[in-house]
């Protein structure tokens, strides 16, 4: 059976496409603005990266403390670990210390066991 397009529906079809256009155009505009600001930010970022590279070899505090703790308890000495090569993936480094703590302190046994066995 043959159908028809009511004016209302016609309007919907047209306005619908217009809306999609407006929305994406709006996004395009906003993104363009961001890109302007971005140039400035990128500058900063590059500097940060530069800094980050220097920091890279060190690890996050939690792990540092844990390892120091382990060492300390083992050799029962009173020294402080100054610098440790990071063996964790950059990924883990990026995760928040809370989540990381959760994983390191609880998830994995290795660190703790190795510690405890000695005690």
């Amino acid at each position, binding site marked *: *059976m*043959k*159908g*028809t*397009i009511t004016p209302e*529906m*016609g309007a*919907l*079809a*047209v306005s*619908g*496409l217009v*809306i*999609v*256009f*407006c*929305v*994406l*155009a*709006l*996004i*395009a*505009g*906003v*993104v*363009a603005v*961001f*890109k302007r600001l*971005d140039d400035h*930010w*990128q500058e900063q*970022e590059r500097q940060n990266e530069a800094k980050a590279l220097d920091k890279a070899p060190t690890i996050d505090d939690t792990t540092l403390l844990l390892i120091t703790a382990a060492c300390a308890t083992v050799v029962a000495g009173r020294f402080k670990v100054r610098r440790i090569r990071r063996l964790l993936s950059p*990924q883990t480094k*990026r*995760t*928040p210390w809370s*989540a990381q703590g959760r994983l390191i302190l609880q998830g994995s046994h290795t660190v703790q066991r190795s510690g405890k066995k000695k005690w």
Partner: protein
Amino acid sequence: MDVLWDFLQVGLVGNFSWGNMTMLAIGCIFIYLGIAKDYEPLLLVPIGFGMLVGNIPLSPGMNVGIYETGSVLNVLYSGVTQGWYPSLIFLGIGAMTDFSAMLSNPRLILLGAAAQAGIFLTFAGSLLLGFPEREAAAIGIIGGADGPTAIFLSSQLAPHLLGAIAVAAYSYMALVPVIQPPIIKLLTSRKERLIRMKPSRPVSKRVRILFPVVAFILCAGIAPGAISLLGFLFFGNLLKESGVTERLAKTARNALIDIVTILLGLCVGASTDASRFLTPASLKIALLGAVSFCVATAAGVLFAKLMNVFAKDKINPIIGAAGVSAVPDSARVCQMVGAREDPTNFLIMHAMAPNVAGVIGSAVAAGVFLSRFVF
């Protein structure tokens, strides 16, 4: 002996129908295309096997059919009818989508908008073919070349057509490499296809983090009907880009999306039983779907040519075809078509921009229909 005979009556023997046989055959074809031809196997294999599951002839009342309330398939199917499978898939897609190609060249976003013309022309066409308004809208969205969006919208507007619409959408998405090249060739001159676009500088992490938040507020603020789709898409993308929620993003783009894809495909396939699927309506839908894909491709290409009239540095109109989304197939098609003219012309990065923009575009279109029809 007649006990055995009675028993056989509950199954294929007693409920034989050519319709189901046809669907079983179609299911096998889907599986074949997925495995042998590598057409979107992650979608066609589950859907194809689902067609087998949903078309075994059987007597009702055994509580196994997908339309029998309380059956296993029926319970799992609720994720489709309630529309949260598509949303979760969008969550995973967001967690694996890299918008930086689009962010580094914003004007290409418009190509993703232009391609959505396919949706609204198909909508009009469906009305002309006599479909009621809501069904017409659900059919039109096939032109969005976006499976989850199509399934979500038809689950809301035309549940009884869901099977046909989903199958059409996924079939044509799988056939993108076949459908698009000729159209692109037809509408572009060799000179245009040879245009080289200069690579644009990448955007910083900040912009990639800001984008999902701002884009969501813009889209949802104007077309709130799209929240169920774009909310999850941009949420997943934020999880990916934030850099501090990587473990969530990783799960979203692996375990989560895989599980949902398996169930979605199986259920969508199983929902296409012959009595509901083998109808004139399905034929019309298949026809309209093909049209909408062609229109969408053409619209994207032509709009790119239009932009070239005004733009200082030219766009290669080929990438207009990537606006139909079907990520990342159509982007790759553009790459191939371009490479055939000039093997050292690398369009794929540029094509990714309208490609992902097209996903947002069709979700917004779905939102428009939803907010107009649902209440």
